[in-house]
């Protein structure tokens, strides 16, 4: 609001009025302008006509004056009389400078001049002069304007005498029109002027302009008048010679062909418009002033109550709720003010109750905040103390006492069958000592007991005066009156009780009880946390230990000693012992195998007899854990040896766990402590685990050793077999060669004629013999390879030659079956290094197989070189090999088992040998095939192969 609203009202009001006034004035002015212009032009024109008339009458007057003389009979008068008349005429008309009488023949009879000598009867022939000719024809003639000495305007006027009297010619000094022109008044600054037919100025109030011979046609209005004679006054933008804008009108004097112009400066002509404009402007200013005043008044009437409203609202807003607005405008503003008043009243009323509520709420918030702070504090203590429950309980007791306005607080935990003191706050140390000594059991006797018994919150309002309360002694000792017990419960079981006391009688409120329950829950959580944490830690440690031992086992498959050492180390670390000793049974002795710890012990390898008087021996013999809490309490007879060692090595407690293998102990782990005391069941369990792991390790070593021995034996056997096969093949080949040779000779008839039947038998013997020989050769090769006896004969070879060799060897075979045999070997393949004979054998085998297993179509050998390797492919269009068979065909004695292959014969060793040869070169052999479509065998060998050593192994 402020000034803004006031200003807005005023500006709006003034703006509206101003807009109306301005539009009104502008329109009015426009119409006035138009009318005035029209009227001015009309008036001008009238004045021009008038001026034209006056000038014409000036000339006509001269004509009339001449007319007095120019009578028909005048020419007959005596010359002196005529001269006198002319002189008199000149006297009467000062503009006439010269008069000439011409007789009807056109001869000059008389000349009277103001400037030259008068002439009488000169008889000069003027009959051709236009003045004479025209005047004789038309009675009166006005000559054109001419300028004497190029300066003074003159005009010739000729008037014919009536009848046949001749003509009087007068020279008229037009400077005399000046008198007429300068008397024509047009407005204040207006003037008239006369322009001759050529546009030259004839008359003007400023005679200088006339004398100067001013050409008026350079003025637009004059030019326009000449351009369209007879037309009305054009509305062109007229200017006078001084360049001042004028309102111009003109009229013609037809007899003289002169134009009379009347001009008024536009500014003068427009004076009424300017005056109207000024009037309009002053009216506008006045209107604006009135509008401003009216606007201000109106705005004030509107704004004053609004300001009052604002001020009142501010006062109410600043807290002066008792303030009331008083506005009596009788309109919406008054109702608005009343509304403000009602709101203020309502506000005042609610404000009173609000303070109390705020106070309550603040207190609640404060308490809540304290509680949350306390809770947060406890939670922080919980998180900071994951392994120790006591700080948490201390914090809980402290916070509980503080928040519940108790004088003392204490927490009791169930331990070893009774509730015992665990933590307290604000209790005198002497009293704490008393309480520490107390144990409470569930029952109605004590507060702790009652709470534990019922598992609920128990409150005793005035303990010293409560007849049911059994421990009034304690209450009196501590000076406590009101007591409260809150159970700490886990899964329905009361694991502890929190007790708060007041030294005066005042019951704890429900709210306090709620808080205490929360604290109790937190205490339980803390206890839980500690328990879980401890369990987790132990579990983790055990797992770590187990994992370590397993690692040792895996890294020491043949030696049991490191495992035993690891087991001893783990046992010391995790089973709460100071010292661990591992013993293994060896027949009827037990042998010291590993030791860890500070106590003295038998050296490693020390043997003791398996005597059950020795607790560890007993553990082994009886295959069970023996646990000695205190050696001193052992029977001296029964455990004499143990006791002796205990004294000797300085231990009091001992735990022995047997290493059990299939129910029989093969050793034991012995834990020892300097002080007497029982090992926990967990420690015992853990030790048993370690013992089991030790057993596994021992078993592992045993198994490993066995496997090693077995594999060595197998290897020897395999070598023997290969050697045998090699030898055997050789031994077989020799007699077989003899058989074949002799059979051949027999068949060739070297030993006489052979019957046809016998011939057939011989051929079969020969055929089978050759097959057997091939078989033996293959076996020999294979065995050589397996025995590591096949040595590659490295040499340089040409793949092109190799392929050519193979093709020429198999050509006849292919031709026999009607197959197309071809090759695709690019020129420029590099020379290879390898066992050329063996590689040729491989290729021959593959091509042979292809021809063998192809009944129609073609077999093609392709060669290529890429990345330092030769790639030789044998592509056929044969039966193809099923995917499941493709892996098998490279194994020894494997052939794709179907009728067609069996028909083809073969040992099934070819591909196996080929594979070995290729592998010896550091290459690979693979097959791609689809049944019915053919197969592609691909051999890849390094261009420069180096033999792989001991390929057979």
């Amino acid at each position: 609001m402020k000034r803004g609203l006031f200003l807005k009202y005023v500006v709006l009001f003034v703006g509206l009025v101003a807009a109306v006034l301005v539009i009104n004035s502008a329109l009015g002015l426009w119409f006035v302008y138009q009318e005035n212009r029209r009227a001015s032009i009309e008036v001008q024109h009238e004045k021009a006509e008038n001026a034209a008339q006056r000038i014409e009458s000036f000339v006509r007057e001269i004509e009339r004056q001449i007319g007095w003389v120019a009578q028909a009979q005048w020419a007959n008068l005596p010359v002196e009389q005529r001269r006198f008349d002319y002189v008199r005429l000149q006297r009467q008309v000062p503009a006439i400078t010269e008069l000439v009488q011409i007789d009807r023949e056109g001869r000059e009879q008389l000349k009277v001049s103001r400037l030259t000598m008068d002439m009488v009867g000169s008889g000069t022939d003027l009959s051709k002069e236009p003045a004479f000719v025209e005047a004789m024809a038309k009675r009166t003639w006005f000559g054109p304007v001419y300028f004497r000495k190029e300066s003074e305007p003159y005009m010739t006027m000729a008037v014919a005498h009536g009848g046949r009297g001749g003509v009087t010619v007068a020279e008229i000094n037009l400077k005399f029109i000046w008198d007429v022109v300068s008397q024509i008044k047009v407005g204040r600054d207006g003037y008239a002027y006369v322009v001759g037919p050529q546009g030259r100025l004839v008359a003007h109030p400023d005679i200088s302009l006339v004398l100067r011979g001013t050409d008026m046609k350079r003025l637009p209005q004059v030019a326009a008048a000449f351009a369209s004679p007879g037309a009305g006054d054009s509305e062109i933008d007229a200017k006078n010679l001084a360049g001042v804008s004028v309102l111009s009108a003109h009229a013609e004097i037809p007899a003289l062909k002169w134009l009379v112009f009347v001009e008024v400066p536009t500014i003068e002509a427009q004076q009424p418009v300017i005056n109207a404009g000024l009037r309009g402007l002053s009216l506008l200013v006045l209107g604006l002033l009135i509008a401003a005043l009216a606007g201000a008044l109106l705005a004030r009437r509107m704004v004053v109550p609004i300001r009052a409203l604002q001020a009142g609202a501010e006062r109410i807003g600043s807290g002066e709720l008792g303030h009331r607005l008083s506005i009596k405008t009788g309109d919406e503003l008054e109702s608005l003010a009343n509304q403000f008043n009602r709101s203020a009243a309502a506000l005042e009323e609610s404000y009173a109750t609000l303070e109390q509520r705020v106070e309550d709420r603040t207190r609640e918030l404060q308490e809540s905040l304290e509680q949350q702070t306390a809770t947060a504090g406890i939670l922080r203590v919980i998180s900071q103390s994951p392994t120790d429950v006591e700080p948490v309980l201390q914090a809980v007791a402290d916070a509980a006492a503080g928040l519940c306005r108790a004088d003392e607080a204490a927490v009791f935990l169930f331990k070893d069958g009774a509730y015992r003191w665990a933590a307290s706050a604000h209790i005198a140390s002497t009293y704490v000592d008393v309480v520490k000594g107390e144990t409470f059991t569930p029952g109605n006797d004590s507060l702790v007991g009652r709470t534990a018994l019922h598992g609920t919150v128990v409150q005793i309002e005035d303990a010293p005066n409560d007849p049911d309360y059994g421990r009034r002694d304690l209450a009196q000792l501590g000076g406590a009156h009101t007591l409260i017990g809150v159970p700490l419960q886990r899964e329905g079981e009361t694991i502890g009780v929190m007790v708060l006391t007041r030294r005066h009688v005042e019951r704890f409120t429900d709210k306090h009880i709620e808080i205490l329950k929360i604290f109790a829950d937190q205490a339980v959580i803390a206890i839980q946390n500690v328990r879980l944490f401890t369990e987790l830690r132990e579990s983790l440690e055990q797992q770590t230990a187990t994992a370590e031992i397993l690692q040792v086992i895996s890294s020491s498959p043949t030696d049991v000693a490191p495992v035993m050492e690891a087991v001893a180390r783990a046992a010391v670390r995790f089973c709460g012992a100071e010292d661990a000793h591992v013993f293994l049974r060896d027949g009827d002795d037990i042998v010291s195998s590993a030791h860890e710890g500070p106590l003295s012990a038998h050296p490693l390898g020390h043997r003791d007899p398996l005597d059950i008087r020795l607790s560890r021996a007993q553990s082994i013999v009886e295959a069970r854990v023996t646990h000695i809490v205190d050696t001193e309490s052992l029977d001296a007879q029964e455990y004499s040896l143990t006791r002796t060692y205990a004294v000797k090595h300085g231990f009091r407690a001992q735990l022995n766990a047997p290493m059990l293998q299939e129910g029989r102990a093969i050793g034991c782990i012995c834990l020892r402590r300097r002080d007497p005391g029982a090992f926990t069941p967990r420690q015992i369990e853990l030790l048993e685990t370690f013992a089991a792991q030790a057993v596994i390790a021992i078993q592992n070593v045993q198994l490993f050793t066995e496997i090693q021995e077995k594999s060595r034996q197998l290897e020897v056997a395999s070598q023997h077999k290969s050697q045998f096969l090699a030898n055997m093949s050789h031994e077989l080949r020799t007699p077989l060669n003899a058989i074949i040779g002799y059979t051949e000779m027999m068949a060739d008839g070297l030993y006489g004629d052979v019957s046809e039947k016998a011939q057939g038998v011989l051929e079969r013997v020969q055929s089978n013999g050759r097959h057997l020989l091939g078989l033996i050769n293959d076996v020999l090769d294979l065995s050589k390879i397996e025995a590591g006896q096949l040595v590659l004969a490295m040499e340089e070879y040409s793949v092109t030659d190799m392929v050519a060799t193979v093709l020429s060897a198999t050509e006849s075979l292919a031709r026999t079956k009607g197959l197309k045999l071809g090759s695709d070997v690019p020129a420029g393949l590099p020379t290879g290094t390898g066992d050329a004979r063996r590689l040729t054998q491989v290729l021959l085998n593959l091509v042979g197989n292809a021809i063998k297993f192809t009944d129609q179509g073609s077999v093609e050998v392709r060669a290529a070189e890429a990345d330092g390797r030769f790639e030789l492919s044998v592509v056929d269009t044969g039966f193809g090999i099923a995917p499941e068979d493709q892996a098998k065909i490279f194994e020894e004695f494997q052939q794709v088992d179907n009728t067609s292959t069996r028909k083809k014969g073969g040992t099934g060793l070819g591909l196996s040998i080929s594979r070995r040869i290729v592998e010896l070169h550091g290459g690979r052999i693979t097959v791609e095939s689809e049944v019915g479509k053919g197969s592609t065998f691909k051999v890849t060998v390094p261009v420069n192969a180096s033999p792989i050593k001991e390929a057979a192994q």
Partner: protein
Amino acid sequence: MKRRELIAVGGAAFVSARAHAAERTIGWISPESREVTAPFFAALEAGLKANLPAGETVRVIERYGVSGPQAAAQQVAELQQQGASLIVVQGAATPPVVQAKPAVPVVFAFSGDPVVGGIVQSLARPGGNATGMSFMSVELNPKRIDFLRTMLPACRKIALLSNARHFGEENEIAACQRTVEGAGIELSVWRSQSPADIQSVVGQALDGGAQALVVLPSSSMVQQAAATCAQCLARNVPVVSGWASVARAGALLTYGPNLEAAYSRIGFYVVRVLGGAAPANLPIEQPTILELVLNRKTANALGVTIPPTLLAQADEVIE
């Protein structure tokens, strides 16, 4: 504060400009004496007064007896030094003053033809720094002889008295000689070198048998008019001249412009040029009103009857 000062300064400047405009200084150069030109000077002052805007005055520094180029140039320089913003020059002093090329405009009252005199380019457009009025002396002299002949048809010997110092009189003499050619009239020319010798020159002319004396009008002649007329009347010889004052001094007739009106018109020129008009564009006016003044007294004394034609034309008849 500054703005107020500025307004004050501007106001002062305006006022001083007005004051300057209100009091202008011009020079008046005459070849004659103060006495001779007094009527013309009075007419000029009247003309100035009539044409000046109300409240403005013009101070005139007068210089008389200026003849010859040297004197003219000196006066022009002096007048300019004394702050004259315009120079009015009269009669014979006109050519030397114009030829002195003053820095300020010149307005002249010249009886001769200024175009012929080389003072201006043309009457309509003077073109230079000078303008003014021409008194048509050359043209009117023949007409005076015409009037004389009308009055005295028997007159055959006419003496022409000329002021040798008066510029352009040779033209007038020539024009007169052309007029009388073939008219049976003997024209003798008598040149006066200074006012002092007029009487003796006139005496010589009269002794020469002149039947009439035509005095070419000039200021110095006017000064001696009464004496000359008396001298001639004594010998029964009529005097004819151009200016009415000569007729009043005893001449038989005069015909010429009304000099008072002409000098008054010079006042109009002065005001116009002071107002900023360029003399180059201000046409030279010639008198429109020519006065014929007859002296019946002289006529009676001479025993001459004035014919009715002249009486009809006369603007003034001195009884």
